[in-house]
C-alpha cells in the first residue's frame, strides 16, 4: 500500500512544483511589463526568455516529457516540430521584415 502512495505523492509534488514555477515565471513576466525597470527591447527579450523557460517547465512537469525513459519518441517528435516551427516562423519574419524594409 505504501509504494502506490509514494508514487501518488511524487506525482502530486511534480504538478505542484510545475504550478509554482509557472506562477513565478508568469508573475515575473507581467511584473516586468507593469513596472518597467529596463528599456523596451530588454523587456521584450526578458519576456521571451521567461516564456521559453516556462514552456520547458510545463513540458517537463505537466506533459511529463523527459530526457530519459519511454518519452524518447515524444521528445524527438517535439524537437522536430520545434525545428519546423522555428524555420517557418523565423523565415516568415525575416523575409517579410526585409521586404517591408525595402518598400519603405
Amino acid at each position: 500500500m505504501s509504494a502506490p502512495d509514494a508514487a501518488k505523492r511524487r506525482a502530486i509534488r511534480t504538478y505542484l512544483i510545475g504550478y509554482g514555477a509557472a506562477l513565478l515565471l508568469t508573475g515575473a513576466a507581467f511584473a516586468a511589463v507593469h513596472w518597467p525597470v529596463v528599456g523596451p527591447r530588454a523587456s521584450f527579450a526578458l519576456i521571451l526568455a521567461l516564456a521559453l523557460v516556462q514552456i520547458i517547465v510545463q513540458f517537463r512537469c505537466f506533459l511529463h516529457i523527459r530526457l530519459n525513459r519511454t518519452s524518447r519518441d515524444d521528445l524527438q517528435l517535439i524537437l522536430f516540430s520545434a525545428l519546423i516551427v522555428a524555420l517557418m516562423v523565423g523565415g516568415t519574419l525575416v523575409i517579410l521584415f526585409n521586404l517591408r524594409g525595402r518598400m519603405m
Partner: protein
Amino acid sequence: MSMDATRHAGLPVDHGDAEAEMDASRDLFGFWVFLMSDAVIFALLFATYGVMLPATAGGPTPASEYKIGPTFLETLVLLTSSLTFGMATVALKHAAQRRALLAWMAVTLALGLLFLGLELHDFADMAAHGAVPARSGFLSAFFGLVPLHGLHVLAGCLWILVMMAQLLIFGPDPRVRINIQRLGLFWHFLDIIWIAIFSTVYLPGLIR
C-alpha cells in the same frame, strides 16, 4: 480503479508495470503528432501576427486595446486549470474512487468556462471601441490567432463533458482512461499555447 473494468481488450490491468506504460505511450504518440501539427498552425498565425503588427491603418493599436489586468487574470485561471487537470490525472492513475476524478474534471471545466467568459468579455470590449477584425490588418491577425485558442479551449470543455459522461456510463475502462490521458495532453498543450500568446501578443503590446 476496479480491476474487472480493465480485464477486456486494450490496456493491460496494472498501471505500474512497464508493458502497460509502453502501450499507453504508443497510444498517446499519435495524439502527440496531432498536437504538434496543431502547434504548426498556431506558429504560422503567430508569424502572421508579427508581420501584421504595424498594419494598424490608423485604427486601434495594441497599446490602446490590450489590458494587463484581465490578461493576468485569464492567465491565472488557465494555469490553475492545468494544475486541476493534473490532479485529475493523478486521481485517474492512483486513486481508488471515481469521485475524485470527476470532481477535478468538473473544477477544470469550470475554470475553462470562466476563462472563455473573461476572454469573450475582452473581445466584446474591443468590439465596443470599434476594434473589429475588419478594421485593420493587425486586428485581422489578432482575431485569427487569439480566438482560435479560445475555440480550442471550448472544444476542450466539450471534450471534458463528454469524458465525464463516458466515465459515468462506462466507468474507467481502458478506452475511457486513454482518452482522458489524451484530453490531459490537449489541455496542458493549450496552456502552453496561451503562454506563447500572452508573451508575444499581449505583453509586448503593453511595453511602454
